[in-house]
């Protein structure tokens, strides 16, 4: 497991909140985050969402979108098409709260074990694959967007 200090600074508070938490408390916080989820704005993307933005192996049918931020960072958004995709929505809301506008290097520095730390070790491989896929695709698009910014 990565040490909390390896996480981007803006994510550390939320990661610490999940340290030594019981399952009831974990569910309460994650459900609260999922209720804060905001779908990708229509000026960024509209249905049908493009396949190349779809998270592979995510059965919640999640999509990831990015745009350059005027301050040089990356803004990013998610769509979650599965009405039962509460975990995907919770992860999206946590990432947005903590990393919106960050630069690509910061987004790419998010350790893979974020899914374990947030959702606990009870999570199945299938579920974990989808959630981690959201993080991986976000990193990919963040890097792509930053490259495009630099080339302009």
């Amino acid at each position: 497991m990565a040490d909390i200090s390896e996480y981007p600074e803006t994510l550390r508070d939320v990661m610490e909140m999940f340290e030594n938490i019981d399952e009831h408390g974990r569910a309460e916080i994650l459900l609260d985050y999922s209720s804060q989820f905001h779908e990708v704005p229509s000026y960024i993307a509209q249905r049908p969402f493009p396949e190349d933005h779809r998270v592979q192996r995510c059965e919640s049918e999640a999509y990831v979108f990015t745009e350059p931020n005027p301050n040089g960072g990356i803004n990013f958004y998610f769509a979650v098409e599965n009405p039962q995709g509460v975990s995907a929505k919770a992860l999206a809301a946590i990432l947005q709260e903590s990393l919106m506008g960050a630069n690509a290097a910061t987004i790419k520095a998010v350790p893979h074990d974020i899914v374990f730390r947030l959702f606990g070790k009870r999570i199945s491989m299938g579920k974990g694959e989808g959630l981690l896929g959201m993080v991986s695709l976000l990193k990919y698009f963040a890097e792509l967007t930053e490259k495009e910014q630099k080339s302009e």
Partner: protein
Amino acid sequence: MSNSGYAHPDALVDTDWVAQHLSDPEVRIVESNEDPLLYASGHIPGAIQIDWVTDLNDQIRRDYLDRKSFETLMSKHGISNNTKVVFYGDKNNWWACYAFWVFQLFGHTNAAIMNGGRLKWVEEQRPVTKEVPHYAASTYQAQERSDYKVRAFRDQVLGHVNAHLPLIDVRSPGEFKGELTHMPDYPQEGALRAGHIPGAKSIPWSKAAQSDGTFKSPEDLKGLYEQDNGFSPSQNIVTYCRIGERSAHTWFVLTYLLGYPNVRNYDGSWTEWGNSVGVPIEK
């Protein structure tokens, strides 16, 4: 759709039936999910949650709970030997079928699956609640866990392979072909080797389900397993996947919907087979 064409129609109930039995003291509705958040986000009124990790598995060994623990679990939820237990859950009832299967290890035959699972209930805009019910403790006497009839162990599967008996691999085609072993940081459900058990036929679990999560009709299921893939009720069949949950879905279909009397679920599945030394693997 009527359940009448299925081999054991009592093992399948629809959402209307559940809606009519929410307050039935002889019925206990049980939600079993892959996603640990879903029950807490809202569930069928009166439904309890049985978790596949924390409730059904031994917390030290890789095995299921024993008779005493099962009795304690039943008692805690007010389930008696005569209670009809109806399972439902996410992911097309994978974990509902898995929990149903574990209950059969202890001989709780008065059990059913709610066709279409959690998604169908929610999409029909039926009531859900966050209130967790508490039932008066019951007295429950379970049989010793019976591992021989519906459960297969690795060495039995090896014998099965050597005898050229049929197996069904219900994983995705990519897993069957050996393109995927595990994901980064999730080694506990991964495997060192990829591929499939020799002789297994690939019939992904999802082929038995319709787009709304309900099971296909008896005719369509017979078409899938018998006409398309050559299986028959007289065969001794082993189903497997990665950890035994998706194959519990197919085990349920073959045993209860098509009436095959001799189907076992290999719960060790690929996480055992793909990590075992010396067992044969095909790609």
